[in-house]
């Protein structure tokens, strides 16, 4: 008994160590990319339409080139898995995500590959270069020190959405100035309708209004300059004050549909899809997100937020390659391959989103957006605040802005709170 008692813990320990080693070895085997193969970690889940389009392209690429691609459908948290690997460990050869999270991780840490080579490469079988297929209108913000870090394959535009079947007049002569727009809202209100749908529990959506109106009054990029001021006092100008007052008046005039302050997303956007409110300010996911709850016969139409210096805020989703990727050549080949019309086109036809190739037809519900991006200047969503100053919107802008948009603070109160929070933010982000 005594003998067995003294040896069995050792045996147990040995068994534990062996199994732990076995697990480690198995883990390493699963993570490594075999020689010549390509490892791709995607932001999509396998069931999403984009994943289906990408998976088909991967299969076709494998068949044509003989390069083995191992895809992991990681989902939106993909970069949270890439970041720890950047310090040491297996990084994938190819990753896709929205430009902002990529900027906050790979670009911030200078761990991205310069993708100039991809833009200079030919899209197989098209006799065109990638740079000729992707509109350079979208590429201005996708560079660091002149080096491109992202090749976009999907473009998200932000603006007003309405049902053109119910509001034929708006579709025929869309409002161009803020005055035209508020006149339209006043008319709708006087006719007993709710002019605007807003899920006010999402601070991002509240910020659309204030920053969108400011961008359209001051011009793209100016709000970002205001946010850069370490004292936070740069906001206090007559021009900014006038815009802030007009945003506060939206709730004071009762233009927001009931529930905008106190309900839970997606309650109000569903009311909009049911025809209980006229306009919804949102990204180009609005039609697909509200589609299931929409009333029959709805005809989604896009309208850029009106203003004197109108622009369309646009964000991109696309491919990036970590600097430490083992097989960057194959990753670059795949990116160029995916830009073929037969693959990229399905981002529009099947995933129902806009592509960065203006020659490809847009899905019908995004036709207005495609037209606006072609005709108007491009700006950045939230003027790049969220992307360039991580944490700024959460800690500085949102808390002050939520109160302003909901009509719970005056312009003075907003400016005071913003200045205090902004000074606090820059104190710790020096």
């Amino acid at each position, binding site marked *: 008994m005594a003998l067995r008692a003294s040896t069995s*813990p050792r045996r147990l320990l040995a068994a534990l160590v062996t199994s732990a080693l076995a697990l480690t070895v198995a883990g390493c085997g699963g993570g490594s990319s075999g020689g010549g193969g390509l490892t791709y970690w995607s932001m999509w889940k396998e069931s999403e339409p984009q994943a289906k389009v990408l998976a088909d392209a991967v299969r076709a690429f494998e068949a044509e080139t003989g390069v083995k691609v191992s895809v992991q459908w990681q989902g939106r948290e993909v970069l*949270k898995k890439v*970041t*720890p690997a*950047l*310090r040491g460990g297996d990084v994938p050869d190819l990753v896709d995500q929205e430009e*902002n*999270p990529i*900027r*906050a*991780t790979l670009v*911030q*840490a*200078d*761990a991205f590959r310069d993708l100039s080579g991809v833009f200079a490469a030919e899209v197989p079988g098209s006799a065109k270069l990638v740079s000729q297929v992707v509109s350079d209108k979208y590429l201005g913000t996708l560079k660091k020190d002149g080096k491109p870090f992202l090749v976009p394959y999907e473009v998200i535009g932000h603006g007003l959405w309405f049902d053109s079947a119910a509001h034929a007049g708006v579709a025929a002569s869309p409002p161009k100035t803020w005055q035209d727009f508020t006149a339209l809202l006043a008319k709708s209100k006087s006719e007993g309708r709710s002019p605007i749908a807003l899920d*006010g*529990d*999402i*601070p*991002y959506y509240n910020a659309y209004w204030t920053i969108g109106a400011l961008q359209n009054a001051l011009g793209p990029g100016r709000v970002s300059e205001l946010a850069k001021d370490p004292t936070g006092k740069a906001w206090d100008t007559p021009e900014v004050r006038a815009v802030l007052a007009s945003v506060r008046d939206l709730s004071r005039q009762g233009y927001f549909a*009931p*529930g905008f*302050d*106190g*309900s*839970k*997303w997606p*309650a109000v956007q569903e009311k909009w899809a049911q025809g209980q409110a006229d306009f919804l300010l949102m990204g180009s996911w609005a039609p697909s997100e509200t589609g299931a709850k929409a009333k029959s016969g709805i005809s989604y139409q896009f309208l850029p937020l009106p203003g004197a210096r109108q622009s369309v805020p646009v964000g991109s989703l696309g491919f990036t390659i970590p600097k430490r990727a083992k097989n960057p050549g194959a990753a670059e080949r795949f990116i160029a391959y995916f830009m073929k019309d037969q693959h990229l086109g399905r981002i529009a036809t099947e995933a129902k989103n806009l592509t960065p190739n203006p020659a490809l037809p847009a899905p019908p519900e995004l036709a207005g957006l495609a037209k606006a991006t072609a005709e108007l200047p491009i700006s950045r969503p939230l003027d790049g605040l*969220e*992307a360039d100053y*991580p*944490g700024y*919107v*959460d*800690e500085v802008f*949102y*808390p002050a802005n*939520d109160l302003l948009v*909901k009509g719970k603070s005056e312009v003075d109160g907003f400016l005071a709170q913003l200045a*205090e*929070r902004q000074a*606090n933010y820059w*104190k*710790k982000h020096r």
Partner: protein
Amino acid sequence: MAVTAIPVVRPRKAVAGGGALARRRRRTFWPFLLPALVIYLAFFIGPALASLWISFHKWDGVGEMEPRGLQNYEILFSDDTFLAAFGNTLLILVVVGAATFAVSFGLTMVLRDMRGKRFVRAVLFFPYIISPLVLSVLWGFLFRTPEGLVNSAWAALTGGTGVNWLGDHLFGVIMIGLIWVNTGFYTTVIMAGVDRIPPDLYEDCALAGATAWQRFRHVTLPLSWDVVATAAVIWTISSLKIFEFIYAFGGNTNDMPTVTVWNSALFVYGATFGGRTPQYQFGYASASAVVTLAVITVLVVLLRRLLRREAVAF
């Protein structure tokens, strides 16, 4: 068993020095302690020390760590966002804690004499088992305005629109939710203590004509004091870690909850992985975690001193 059965009373010294049982105990001390110790060192003490080390640096989690000395702590103590978040942590600790214990004692007094108390206790315990994420969804259905259950009921009864719970009193609603979630657990713990109190003491009280308050003040509280003291320490530690309920209830798929309802746990998340564009400030977040840990440690020590009483034997 054989050893304890020996009737001879040995001198104290001899027992402490040798004795078969003591020797065997000494031999089994390390094998029994070691696994727990290794796990505790690897998963609790190690990371805690690592946090302390990281807190003296600026680090984005990818590049090299850049030594910063005490600068993170200097910034922290003048960072209004952190101070507000820490204030919320203390509010949860004190207000939610006091309310949870008051309600738990109240329920204990009611349940003590109630028929079917086991069933009721199980029902009360239920919210504690369910994922805070699920509860936060339910809580949203209750309190949203205008179509939530609470305001619909209010409108049906009074015809008025009621309070804008989520719009104007978000943190208040979060605190009520936390009280509701935690009450079941602390009721169960306190009841376990109260159940040990011999019923004849209550019969004595009844004969002497004691009021409910006097029964509580002179019998229940003193005789369950050690259980209450332990429960208070458990609450202090667990209140520091509250995260999911606030995160899921105040936030949504992409965004953190509004900064006005952050507690220090959410602050750490906000400074590292949270939000649409994360900040990845691991050094700064570690400093805030270290400060929170230090303050809570002091509070626990104080609380232990404050609640120390002579155990009442019964």
